[in-house]
């Protein structure tokens, strides 16, 4: 499920713009801002605006998109300072006084203009053990998972992530601490921690602990506020904090026990 798109509350502005209305679009490129003028159109999205600039005014403008319908997660940018999917954001919902400021996604290296290098984002996904771990001996039978078990529900709450990087761009802790794994990777780890078939739990809890891990999250909620899929990485991270704390206390207890035995 996607987050509701605020069509009814378009900042009190009509989806249908006045005829002849123009939009002033500032785009960050080459260390500065370049300004373009684009005609307002009915139900226009931010992606429509960028595409129109690239096709009609400046074919050298680089940006990225694929599906145009909120499926692929490749079109995210900073729109007036906030990370958003540009294909699912209407101009009327966000343009303040007919002005738009577009910048590449925050917290990631820029490749060119509005296209960023997603590599660090995916590297952290891997570092957080974001892949299912079947174990040495794959189970012979189907795992029976009750749909309403607490673990399955915890997985459901975070499973719809499409790796768009919006939450990663929204998180100040990533800016302050570039090693921080970030909300998306930690959210993914939490879905696997709750997957009863997974055999990599201990190693994963280890991987999401420490100065780069879940304990560094300050519960700012910026990720949760901005996720276009209405996921809540903050709560996933709180779950990881709980489970890693329990695991570390258990390890401490086991060490005591071994010493006294």
């Amino acid at each position, binding site marked *: 499920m996607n987050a509701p798109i605020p069509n009814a509350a378009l900042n009190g502005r009509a989806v249908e713009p006045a005829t002849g209305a123009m939009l002033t679009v500032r785009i960050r490129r080459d260390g500065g801002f370049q300004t373009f003028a684009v005609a307002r159109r009915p139900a226009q999205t931010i992606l429509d605006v960028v595409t129109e600039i690239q096709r009609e005014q400046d074919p050298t403008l680089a940006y990225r998109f694929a599906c145009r319908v909120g499926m692929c997660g490749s079109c995210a940018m900073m729109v007036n300072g906030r990370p958003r999917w540009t294909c699912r954001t209407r101009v009327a919902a966000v343009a303040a006084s007919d002005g738009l400021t577009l910048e590449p996604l925050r917290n990631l290296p820029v490749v060119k203009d509005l296209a960023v290098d997603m590599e660090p984002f995916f590297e952290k996904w891997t570092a957080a053990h974001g892949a299912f771990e079947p174990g040495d001996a794959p189970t012979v039978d189907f795992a029976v998972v009750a749909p309403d078990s607490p673990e399955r529900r915890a997985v459901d709450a975070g499973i719809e992530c499409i790796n768009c990087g919006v939450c990663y761009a929204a998180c100040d*802790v990533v800016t*302050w*601490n570039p090693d921080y794994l970030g909300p998306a990777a930690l959210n993914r780890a939490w879905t696997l921690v709750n997957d009863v078939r997974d055999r990599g739990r201990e190693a994963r809890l280890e991987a999401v*602990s*420490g*100065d780069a*891990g879940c*304990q*560094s999250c300050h519960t700012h909620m910026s990720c949760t506020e901005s996720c276009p899929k209405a996921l809540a990485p903050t709560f996933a991270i709180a779950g990881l*904090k709980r489970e*890693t*704390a329990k*695991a*570390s*206390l258990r390890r*401490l207890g086991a060490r005591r026990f071994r010493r006294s035995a």
Partner: protein
Amino acid sequence: MNPLLYVAQRGTAVILAVAVAVHLGTILYAVRGGLTAGEILGRTQGNRAFLAFYGVFVIAAAIHAPIGLRSILREWTGWRGRSLDGAMLAVSALLVVLGLRAALAVYIA
């Protein structure tokens, strides 16, 4: 942050939440009741419950604050590694010494 430091910071936060409330309540009581310094010292002198309470308060703060300070310094300055951890241990020791000295002073005085 190591998960055990995390547990220590959250655990001491619970102690601090109670201790800060009792501490503030005591201050309000002493000030509004119009107690003089002599009367206050009369109640704290040789009072073991008083000493135990402030001893726990001081130690909880000495565990809690340096862990938080470490996070802030890591985020806002480039300071990392062993020198930072050593400095935080020093902050903790300083809080223990200053805090216990103050509590002992009114206990013995």
